[in-house]
């Protein structure tokens, strides 16, 4: 640890283990980087961890000003800090520790946590700096901060979604009982859509998974066909589609093709060349003749909202064989559309 010359032998004679050897062992094996400077800022010693951390051999650093290991603004300010400390004794870092920026031999910089101790020997003053690279920790903290922000944003947006569903359900309800039932079902449909998104870390969802989840939730598997290519949906569109499908299923089970034994639903979709191009067709068959629903009802608005979200348009047709709902955005390949039963 002694930075310059050998100690006189007197202290080791009182210390059978060898004080010098003991400190040397700590210095050489410490995981943290240790640099010893004199009061003029000249490096007098550094340990192997410091050599690794800064990418320098000891010989390149010893005898030179320690500012070579620092990035700006610390680099330019350091001599001034030392001078002020020599004159005033005012402590800015000694015994306190702080976050600074180091600079490697290759010029790259990195965040450092630094603590400094002062000691004297033979009338000379030295400073020992112990340093740790906190790049990973800084990155992890930043990552965590972003995730908490993102989570907060999603929670607030989801609450706004629930607020919207609740207010619209109450607004259009014929009775408190029917509102209670409809609200429960809509919130459960929203939760199901979130399940699909959670499985994919909220990066999006497969259209087929959203359709499959809705079919399962409405226990309509044997009477519903779902045909279409692989299409990825952004999270918000996946949620909008899930809610639109929920409304279509609920309507079909109450008034449409799923009220009769022979009725069913074909769901088909096709994609185009550009990512957003999509046509989705809901086709009921074998059901009773349906009447046009309330334009201001949540279901119709949800379908129009989904179309708007997809930058497309929605068309609802009340044909003798049953309801047909078409949502189109952009150009789709007509052959593909025909193949998936949506051509006519």
């Amino acid at each position, binding site marked *: 640890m002694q930075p310059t010359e050998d100690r006189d032998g007197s202290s080791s004679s009182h210390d059978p283990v060898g004080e010098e050897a003991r400190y040397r062992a700590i210095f050489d094996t410490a995981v943290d980087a240790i640099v010893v400077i004199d009061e003029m800022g000249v490096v007098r010693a550094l340990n192997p961890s410091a050599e690794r951390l800064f990418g320098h051999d000891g010989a390149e650093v010893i005898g030179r000003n320690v500012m070579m290991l620092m990035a700006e603004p610390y680099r330019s300010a350091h001599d001034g800090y030392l001078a002020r400390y020599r004159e005033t004794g005012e402590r800015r870092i000694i015994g306190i520790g702080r976050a600074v920026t180091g600079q490697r031999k290759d010029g790259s910089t990195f965040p450092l946590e630094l603590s400094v101790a002062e000691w004297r020997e033979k009338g000379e003053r030295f400073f020992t700096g112990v340093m740790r690279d906190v790049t990973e920790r800084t990155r992890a903290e930043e990552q965590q901060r972003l995730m908490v922000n993102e989570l907060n944003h999603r929670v607030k947006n989801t609450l706004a979604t629930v607020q919207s569903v609740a207010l619209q359900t109450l607004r259009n309800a014929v009775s408190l009982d029917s509102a209670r039932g409809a609200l429960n079902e809509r919130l459960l449909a929203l939760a199901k859509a979130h399940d699909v998104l959670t499985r994919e870390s909220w990066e999006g969802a497969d259209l087929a998974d959203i359709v499959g989840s809705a079919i399962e939730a409405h226990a309509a598997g044997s009477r519903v066909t779902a045909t279409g290519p692989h299409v990825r949906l952004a999270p*918000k569109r996946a949620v909008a589609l899930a809610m639109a499908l929920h409304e279509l299923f609920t309507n079909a089970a109450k008034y449409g093709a799923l009220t009769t034994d022979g009725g069913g639903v074909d769901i088909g979709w096709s994609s185009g060349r550009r990512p957003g191009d999509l046509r989705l067709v809901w086709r009921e068959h074998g059901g009773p003749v349906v009447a046009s629903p309330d334009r201001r009802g949540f279901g119709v608005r949800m379908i129009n909202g989904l179309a708007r*979200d997809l930058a497309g348009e929605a068309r609802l047709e009340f044909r003798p064989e049953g309801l047909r709902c078409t949502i189109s955005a952009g150009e789709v390949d007509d052959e593909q559309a025909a193949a998936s039963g949506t051509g006519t």
Partner: protein
Amino acid sequence: MSERTKRALVIEDEAIVAMLIEDLLEDMGCQVAASAATAREALELAQSCDVDFALLDVNLGEGQTSVEAADVLRDRQVPYAWLTGYGLQGVPPEHADAPLLHKPIHPGLFAAVVRAIA
């Protein structure tokens, strides 16, 4: 507000939340004259639409924002308010003087802001 029905531009990427805003506006006797869910549509509408005021969701998902649309509205002297789940984050300093509404939406504050800008 005057007697005339006020016309609004609504920029909101989530369809369900857009319906909520529409309902709240209609309850106040305003009309949603134009609405958009993407930054591109928002910018087009900001340039061309004939409205009395605008409500802008800051973050439109997939890294898109309403900031460019807000720049155009400011130049056209169309009053606007921000709507966000984030707080002031994401609103650039030059637009920070516009009113800010949080999600979920407080109907009373919403009405006060709309009355102030419409």
